[in-house]
């Protein structure tokens, strides 16, 4: 026999193999703990530290300029509305374009050269650093004053966020529609539906939950972005009061955190923690919500 004959089947803990296996198992467990630790620590600090500064005044007041008053820095109200408004602007642009692009990829050109190129392009676009989106919008909108002479504006901020949302939405729409079984398409064509009717009445509704999961994730990512805003929307301490204000500087939670975290004043730092609390709670909720929707109606092969 060419193998070391081991007549015993009992577990031998001093065997190199068994020591190695045990060690590797313990190491992988340790690595998992290390990987989970940052999340727990970040969430604990943001919730406890940030949460302790949350009160009705922080939520609605406008922030004070740093250094004016060492005891209070006002609130984060305008930043909350600003983040909301710019995310809405970004959604208005990117959802129709993204869903439309996804429809083209999945329904009209499944494997054509152009579709391949667009799929590749949206992967590349997803990999473009977010600060580049900010630089790009600065160059074509802010510095050219193309928006009725205004420079930094909430609209410019929203547009640069939409660039970040676009690839995610195209991709999830494409993938969600591809999961819709072809039988449903044939059935629709079989009763004489046009392609437009087939898409709007059959495949889009069937893929709706998966698409909304992707849209929510894209939205959550955009709402937390800072880099594309710091030289497009800049920052403002004031609430917007009219439609015209969309064309002026606009504050956001993320830029507020960035600006105030680096201030030497305690009061401003506290505001940054409070803003982090709001941002993290909203984004984690959006994420969990999208996961929940995903499990609810994920369009799978078993469910037809």
């Amino acid at each position, binding site marked *: 026999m060419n193998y070391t004959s081991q007549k015993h089947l009992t577990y031998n803990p001093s065997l190199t193999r068994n020591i190695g296996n045990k060690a590797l198992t313990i190491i*992988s467990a340790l690595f998992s703990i290390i*990987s989970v630790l940052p999340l*727990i620590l970040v969430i604990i600090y943001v919730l406890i530290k940030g949460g302790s500064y949350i009160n009705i005044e922080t939520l609605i007041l406008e922030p004070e300029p740093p250094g004016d008053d060492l005891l209070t820095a006002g609130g984060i109200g305008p930043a909350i509305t600003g983040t909301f408004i710019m995310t809405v602007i970004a959604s208005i642009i990117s959802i129709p374009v993204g869903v439309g692009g996804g*429809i083209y990829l999945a329904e009209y050109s499944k494997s054509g050269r152009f579709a391949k190129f667009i799929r590749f392009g949206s992967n590349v676009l997803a990999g*473009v650093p977010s600060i580049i989106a900010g630089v790009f919008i600065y160059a074509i909108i802010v510095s050219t004053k193309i928006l009725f002479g205004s420079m930094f504006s909430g609209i410019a901020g929203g547009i640069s966020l939409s660039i970040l949302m676009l690839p995610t939405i195209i991709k999830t729409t494409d993938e969600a529609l591809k999961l819709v079984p072809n039988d449903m398409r044939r059935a629709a064509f079989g009763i004489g539906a046009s392609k437009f009717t087939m898409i709007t009445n059959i495949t889009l509704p069937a893929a709706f939950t998966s698409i909304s999961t992707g849209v929510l994730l894209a939205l*959550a990512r955009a709402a937390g972005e800072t880099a594309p805003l710091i030289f497009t929307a800049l920052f403002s301490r004031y609430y917007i009061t009219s439609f015209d204000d969309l064309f002026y500087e606009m504050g956001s939670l993320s830029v507020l955190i960035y600006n105030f975290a680096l201030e030497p004043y305690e009061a401003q730092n506290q505001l940054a923690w409070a803003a982090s609390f709001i941002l*993290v709670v909203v984004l984690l909720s959006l994420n969990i919500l999208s996961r929940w929707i995903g499990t609810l109606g994920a369009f799978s092969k078993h469910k037809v």
Partner: protein
Amino acid sequence: MDKASTSKFSLRTRTTSEKLIDVGFKNIVVAMASMVAVVLFSIFAVVYYESTESISRYGLRFLFSSAWNPVTDEYGAFTAIYGTLFTSIASLVIAIPLGVGTAIFITENIIPKYLRNVIGLMVELLAAIPSVVLGLWAVFIMEPFIRPFLNTIYEIFGFIPFFSTQPLGAGMMPAILILVVMILPIITSISKDSLKQVPSKLRQAAYGIGASRWTTIFQVIIPAAISGITGGVLLALGRAMGETMAVTMIIGNSNNFSWSIFAPSYTISSMLANQFGEADGSQVSSLMYAALILMVLTLLVNVFAQWIVKKLSLKYQ
């Protein structure tokens, strides 16, 4: 009489408007899909156009000079390029074993399934935390916590150039660590997905001839999942190179080149975040040149990632 007109169905033959809607809809979605290409090309074109002045003035010298002087109009991005590459690669070196190890741990049946799901979910939720919040956490919590450890390293190994300056707060090392936190979810979740896709019959085959758990993992499971894992690692590299806010807040933003990982440094993206708002004239052009370099770097990494996933995909069906 025409058959269609006698029918109960008024649309037996398609009306012109219905055909128009069909054609129009197709053209609209084609246009929307093209937007991806338009945006991508415009970004390249605009960043390139804006940087032409610097490109023609400095050429490749820009890549190897550490000068950054708005007064004398001398610009070079060496420190930032080095910082970008060093921080991202160093963070990758730390994050790969952690991420792949975690992915293995939660795809093996070592602990009960619901616990594994919880770990997987937590790591993925980590990706949902905005960069700027991680930056805030790094500045106020993480950096003060790790500074004593870094100081010990400095005191013992200070003679090595990499540890030759005293850690005084912001610097490259805390930036690397926060990058690890940011790219861990990418590596973990993509590795997890690739490991899960390995057909269970391969695992059975290995167990069936008496391979132990980790022999099976290293010799059968990981080789079969390597394309996905590599793709995830490269995506993480691209993300680390382009990451801006957390790094800007903790790296110290200094254009003085130093070998020490405890010294303040720069990355291209943190340089952009820091200076772009106040820059004018040829400084803008130089920043655009730096932005172009960053774009090309991330583009190369991303294209390589897509290529390698295709290339390495094993046919084991």
